[in-house]
């Protein structure tokens, strides 16, 4: 008892500080969490380069959107030979919509996919518990199958040339870097929600990934969804259009959508 009282106050202070240190180390280790972090020195310039390239990309995208709007405006006010120009512009507008170059709004659904919060068992594979490119591709394919007319993942419009690939535990879509949670927005007929829910492929996917590994899949049906335009190049470097005997299926001079 006498000894206990004899503990100097600095020892108590030190004890408390060491206790706090222990907690912080534990918190630090815990926050390293499932997604591994690396801290080697050669990474720093790479991270800086990547950040810089991403902000360049944002600027370029803005420039392209502005230029497109200006071009559309000028094309739309062609003077003189009005009928031909008007028809060409109507066809061009349809082609642009078909190619995903025009932002749309309409009925649709939003699917959100998030990494699992379930603990990975000792014999489990870490990557099974994260949302990967295969998951997103499956969801996109299932949505097309259910009748979706336009799809975007975290703001990147899916086009005929869009690849969806893994980079670490994140994704590249149209070569844009996307991180979870992933929101897959689909525009389509009002029956889209029911069609998707009735698709055996989608049901199997949810069962395998959600029930099997705790991947969190949620579905929302807002009043309307906003579909971003594809901002990228559609310049073909290897393909040349072939002279087609018919004008093609979609160029009937129908009433243009208001825009």
């Amino acid at each position: 008892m006498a000894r206990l009282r004899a503990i100097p106050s600095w020892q108590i202070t030190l004890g408390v500080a060491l206790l706090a240190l222990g907690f912080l180390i534990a918190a630090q280790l815990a926050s390293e969490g499932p997604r591994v972090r690396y801290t080697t020195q050669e990474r720093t310039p790479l991270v800086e380069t990547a950040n810089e390239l991403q902000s360049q990309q944002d600027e370029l995208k803005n420039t392209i959107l502005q230029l497109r709007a200006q071009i559309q405006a000028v094309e739309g006010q062609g003077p003189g030979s009005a009928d031909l120009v008007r028809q060409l512009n109507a066809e061009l507008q349809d082609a642009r919509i078909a190619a995903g170059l025009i932002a749309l709004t309409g009925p649709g659904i939003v699917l959100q996919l998030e990494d699992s919060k379930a603990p990975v068992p000792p014999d489990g594979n870490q990557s099974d518990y994260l949302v990967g490119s295969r998951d997103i591709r499956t969801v996109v394919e299932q949505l097309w199958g259910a009748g979706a007319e336009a799809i975007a993942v975290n703001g990147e419009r899916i086009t005929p040339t869009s690849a969806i690939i893994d980079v670490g535990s994140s994704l590249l879509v149209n070569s844009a870097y996307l991180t979870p949670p992933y929101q897959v927005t689909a525009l389509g007929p009002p029956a889209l929600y029911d069609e998707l829910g009735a698709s055996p492929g989608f049901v199997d996917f949810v069962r395998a990934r959600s029930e099997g590994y705790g991947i969190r899949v949620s579905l929302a049906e807002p009043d309307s969804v906003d579909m971003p335009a594809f901002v990228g190049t559609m310049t073909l470097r290897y393909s040349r259009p072939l002279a087609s005997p018919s004008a093609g299926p979609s160029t009937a001079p129908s009433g243009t959508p208001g825009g």
Partner: protein
Amino acid sequence: MHRRSSQLTIAAVAAILGVLVVIQLRSQAGPTGLAQLSSQDLTVLVANLNARNDQLRRETSLLQAELTTLQTNRSRGDASVDEITADLHRVRAYAGLDPVGGPGVAISIRGAIDGAGVEVLINELRNAGAEAISVGGVRVVTGVVITGAPGTSKVDGVALGVAFDLDAIGAPDKLTGSLTRSGGVIAQLAATQPDVEVTVTPMDRLELPATTRSLVPAHGRPRL
């Protein structure tokens, strides 16, 4: 003496404590998620960002030139029919509304492959820069998916059977290299579907048909 060393110990502990608090706060602040990527992944990311930015730069100068021509024509009272027609062809070819020709690869698939296997090949082709793709003579545009169990895969509802071709236009060497590299998609396919034989042939010229789909959404309106 005793007092001094104890003060030093506390100072040292406090310093470590401070550093740890800062590290902890910083590690939770990274919004881009780049911190969780390895050097190798970062290299892939930087290469992809560079490629995309180069494309965007080319597109910017192309659009800038187009705008200048259109504005010049307008100031002259010219209707720019040629420019609008060129633009129309470019966009229709990209979307798959017109047939296209060019170099690329012909991929012969023999055996009972499933729809997902064909989709994996298509995704890899797109990643390697394929500009236009067709499966069993059907142009793969937005909305077209290949589905079905091994041997019963279908494109747009049409059965592909156990012998069909997958054609892609793009740089033949790049497309071939990306598909056939060790550990690549064809190697993975061989491991999971060993009965399927996939042969890639570089081609000087291929012709791909137009889609029969309209591709104009019936349910969306342009957002202004």
